[in-house]
């Protein structure tokens, strides 16, 4: 099992997010995060889905996304040079003694302070999901009041276009997947 990042371009119509969420629930796929936003093209939204799956499982997720009528295109960025970013807002407790330390850590993580009052700081941090996780970890001893994360967005590096349809189907010859996780059998 590993994290797979899929980008889906979908028609911006009512219910499309519901269809995708329903698909993931129905097929028992594990969503790590899901973000949606507009694209440069009117009427087209872009989804970044991070799923925990085997290689074969990820291909099945991809094929199922393709099967939805409103899904225009799916790219798998997992094995491609790509950028992953997530934004987090962390509200952390500070005292006169600890404020300087927290500010220093904020600097180390290249994060920004966006709100200050006598007892807390709100810090905006961007980066890979791992970096945000680590930032949260180092602030925890000071007392985190609230934390919000956007979920990962991703984009491939470089100017080459990713392949569009049809989905790549891997077979046992080019991919061994002994742990056939995600496959359940009813009785």
């Amino acid at each position, binding site marked *: 099992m590993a994290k797979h990042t899929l980008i889906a371009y*979908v*028609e911006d119509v*009512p*219910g499309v997010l*519901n*269809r995708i969420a*329903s*698909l993931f629930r*129905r097929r028992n796929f594990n969503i790590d995060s899901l973000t949606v936003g507009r694209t440069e093209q009117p009427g087209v939204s872009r989804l970044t889905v991070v799923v925990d799956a085997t290689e*074969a499982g990820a*291909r*099945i997720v991809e*094929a*199922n996304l*393709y*099967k*939805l*009528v*409103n*899904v*225009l*295109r799916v790219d798998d960025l997992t094995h491609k040079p790509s950028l992953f970013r997530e934004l987090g807002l962390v509200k952390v407790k500070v005292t006169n003694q600890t404020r300087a330390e927290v500010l220093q850590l904020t600097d180390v993580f290249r994060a920004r302070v966006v709100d200050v009052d006598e007892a807390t700081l709100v810090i905006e941090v961007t980066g890979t999901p791992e970096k945000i996780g680590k930032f949260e970890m180092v602030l925890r001893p000071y007392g985190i009041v609230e934390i919000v994360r956007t979920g990962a967005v991703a984009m491939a590096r470089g100017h080459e276009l990713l392949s569009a*349809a*049809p*989905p790549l*189907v*891997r*077979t*046992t*010859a080019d991919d061994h*997947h002994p742990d*056939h996780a995600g*496959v359940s*059998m*009813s*009785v």
Partner: protein
Amino acid sequence: MKLTGAEIIWECLQKEGVNVVFGYPGGAILPTYDAMTKYPKIHHVLVRHEQGATHMADGYARASGKVGVAIATSGPGATNMVTGIATAMMDSSPIVCITGQVGSKAIGTDAFQETDVTGVTLPITKHNYLVTKPGDIARAIREAFYIASSGRPGPVLIDITKDAQQMTTEFDWAAAAPRLPGYRPSYHAPASEFARAAELINSAKRPLIFVGQGVVKSGTTAEVLKLAKTAGIPITTTLLGIGAIPASSEFNLGMMGMHGESWVNEAIQQADLLIALGMRFDDRVTGNLKTYALNAKKIHVDIDPTEINKNVPVDVALIGDLREVLSLIQPQVKKAEHKEWWADINARRGDSAVRDIQNLPDSGHLYAAHVINDIWRLTQKRDTIVVTDVGQHQMWEAQYFRHEKPRSLITSGGLGTMGFALPAAIGAKFACPDKDVWVVVGDGGFQMTSCELATAEQEGIKVNVAIINNAFLGMVRQWQEFFYDKRYAATPMTGPNFVKLAEAYRLTGFLCDKRSDVKATVEKTLAAKGTVVIDFVVEKEDTVFPMVPAGADLDKMIRRPKQDVMLESGSDKDWEMPSPALPNVFAEAKAEAKALNGRGKVAQKPAKAPARKVTKTSRR
């Protein structure tokens, strides 16, 4: 041309070539029903329950290959359709369901008879629409028909608000052409995959062809047989693939899976190549996936990419239309005979014939298997469609009715819907009025939708209903017998007097409880003008053999004991599991041939044990 939304619905249906719809009126769909009177070319069949409407549309679609249409009102009308839609989804049946919805202003207010129908049916439709403006109706319907019938077919639902039906707008058929940039019904596998597939086929020593419903839907019987003939490959079918290959074909071994032929399941486990055509490795076909066909490379041909590697990892995937795939692979396949492989399979076939109920001594009881086999024998010269429900009768039908033509068996395979058979048969009769339509149904399933007898009577159509009445929910009882120590919780069941029930609907009813009466009853049924209901009172605790217990290895079947279990007392634990390879008991080839054609009686002493006691729980 200015039309109301309701009129647009009928215009579109007419333009899509629809001549019959199955439906039930109600408040939110009333404008559409009102407009129906202006379109007499489309025949409306009034059902007795909306579930029946969807099953009828489904049966119509499966018998004809065209799109079936069902109509219902909002709320309860639409939710009653859910079972039928799910059935169509699991068996890839092209149906379009049109439901009324409360006015667009009332949506979300919990108005009278309001249900979020698109939400409810989202996971059980191929696609669905909520239409709130009359101008969107035409495009939704055109897209629905296109989506339902293309690629891997499936149900599409269109929920249309009452005000959209009432309001007037410009109707422009051409402008409403489908615009589906994200919908890809067809794929084409790369040439390299075909080369790999051909290489596997040409180097295989023990290959098997799997035929699923995809062969029926794509109409590629001849192409599959040509491939089998060229490369000398035996064919086995799934339940829904029955009929795709004639039962009489020398290449057709029979059905695979949970209640498939034992020699087929054993052959699958020993094969070195499986060529799966339009089937999806359902759990009822594979048994335990961990031990499934471990010796075999797999080639999977399917139009739906999501089926590849879903249950069984495959070596070569050819995604695309079966006709196209077969036409590309055929020239690359070398001639072969595989004599050893065939001899191996035939040896096991001989062993199974001894256990076949057809070859057991007649005990004077009426067995479902005999009833179904007799119906087949008496009707084989006629063009017949058989429609079955789910359960023991469904399996016996699959085993003992020999289907020669595609679309001659309609059954609820994937969802296993009780109550499917009668309404689906009515739909099939509308698709094929010139054919005989037989319903083979259990007494339990029949009672779920028996109200549709009224529909058959009102429409004046003839379907022949053979109720396999064992006063039990037979398949559940069989599981209780095998896996729950015979604790028959809630499976003994009574029913009405089915003959009188038929008569109450102004139809004909017959009772048959003796094997000697079967012939005369079937002949009377065929001669009767209207719908006939036959109550075949069969052996109560009969069992479908062989059986692969759910989740067990495919070749570890519970086999029919060599002595008739039903004639023995207290020896039900006698069933073998697993069965080791048995020697071929037929010394003489002559005896073997006789047993293989399913009719010859094997010389065997009748069992002496007394008839098994009827359990006290079953009252009749």
